[in-house]
């Protein structure tokens, strides 16, 4: 039992294929990952909009339970969860008053000694690319992709402490060792509209349209993402955006772990490929990957 997994609310819900592909990838690499028992939601964007203390204690509860379960390393695949967990650690360790209040709310002491990884950080910093490269069974030959990092993978820089803030390369590096061609572009860290998905859909439609317009120019086979919100916004809203702007994209938005799973010899079922709204099968068949 080496790595604890904090799946977050979307892992078996709207980002189910993300969860399935992470499970498949970790099993292909023989990684010892175990889900945290009885984990609680991090509060996501709603808690920090409502109460600073609540936004701190919800992740802190998880961090304390992870330590109690004997984990020192915690994988939080959802980029927003990872941000909230890392923020809680930073704030608790630097703000004595907040720490005292938070411990009073939870009724337990926070002892520290736990590292949180987002999913890209986990594979590139902890597992390392050489290990993944050695395990590739089916290279993603001739696949032209563009990596979309979104906003929270590298931000805020002091909390994320990962990759180059304005010009990250970690996802591109993963794609390259899997054999794909990964293109550079200027919009890689622009925002997709994140949590406005259900509340201010107009904003999401506008921002995703701007992104898809830029992506269209690159003539790529698919977009590679690492965040459940980026994926959902760009994939499930794509038809609506096409209708509103009277255009056509049809660009599959695929989790990097789905492509990684395929390259490591897993089946399309294993990585939940059929759950994507924009169908990725035709292009993957054309390229001889499926």
């Amino acid at each position, binding site marked *: 039992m080496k790595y604890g997994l904090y799946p977050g*609310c*979307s892992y*078996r*819900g*709207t*980002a*189910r294929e993300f969860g399935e592909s992470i499970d498949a990838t970790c099993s292909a690499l023989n990684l010892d990952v175990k889900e945290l028992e*009885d*984990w*609680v*939601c991090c*509060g*996501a*964007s*709603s*808690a*920090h*909009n*409502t*109460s*600073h*203390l*609540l936004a701190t*204690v*919800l992740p802190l*509860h998880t961090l304390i339970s992870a330590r109690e379960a004997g984990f020192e390393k915690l994988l939080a695949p959802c980029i927003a969860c990872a941000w909230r967990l890392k923020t809680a650690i930073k704030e608790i360790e630097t*703000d004595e008053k907040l720490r005292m*209040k938070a411990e*009073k*709310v*939870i*009724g337990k002491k926070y002892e520290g000694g736990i590292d949180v990884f987002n999913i890209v950080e986990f594979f590139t910093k902890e597992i390392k690319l050489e290990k993944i490269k050695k395990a590739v069974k089916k290279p993603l030959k001739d696949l032209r992709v563009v990596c979309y990092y979104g*906003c*929270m993978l*590298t*931000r*805020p*820089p002091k909390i994320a402490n990962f990759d180059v*803030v*304005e010009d990250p390369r970690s996802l591109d590096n993963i794609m390259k060792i899997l054999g794909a061609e990964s293109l550079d572009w200027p919009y890689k*860290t*622009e*925002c997709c*509209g*994140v*949590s*406005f998905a*259900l*509340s*201010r*859909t107009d*904003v999401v439609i*506008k*921002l995703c349209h701007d992104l898809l317009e830029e992506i269209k120019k690159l003539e790529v086979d698919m977009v590679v993402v690492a965040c459940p919100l980026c994926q959902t916004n760009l994939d*499930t*809203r794509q*038809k*609506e955006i096409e209708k509103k702007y009277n255009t056509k994209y049809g660009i599959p938005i695929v989790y990097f772990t789905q492509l990684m799973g395929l390259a490591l010899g897993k089946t399309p079922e294993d990585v939940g490929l059929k*759950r994507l*709204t924009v169908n990725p099968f035709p292009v993957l068949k054309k390229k001889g990957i499926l």
Partner: protein
Amino acid sequence: MREIAKIDTTFAEQIKNECGENVYSCYQCKKCTLGCPTAYAMRYKPHQLIEAIQLGQKDLVLKDQSIWLCLSCQTCMARCPQNLDFVKVADAARIIAQREGFKIPVPEIAAFNSSFLSLVERFGRIYEIGLVMLIKLKTKQIMKDMAMGLPLFFKGKFSFLPHKVENISAVRRIFRNTKELEQK
């Protein structure tokens, strides 16, 4: 000689107490606004909101929809030459607005936040169908997002029943204790 107007610093101090950020470090370079993905929809742009706080214009900041349109994407703070964290300032302003009973001018966002947290308090996790239904009821937009929701449902991405954490009393205690401590 003309008397120099005094600036009311009370609101800026209140923001600082809430989140630790000093808005007076801002010298209006506008980098935050230039990178902001939702500035186009805001009446007052991020740099203007900071200026308004510097000047003590509390009502202007808390009654307007602009602070509610911040996505917390953190582009502004990552680029700020003064290391001022606008996301924290926006969070603080939103928290103060709610605490002091200001009406949230973007009801959809208020509905999303209250629905989200009530589900976490009840189940310990998010119940996605429940979240969608609650928002629909609160905003009275029943048909919105049906075109997106149905395919997700058929792809097995929505579960019918909520997943409740076993130790739900610990979660409820967290919510209760937080409220009690904040009211003190």
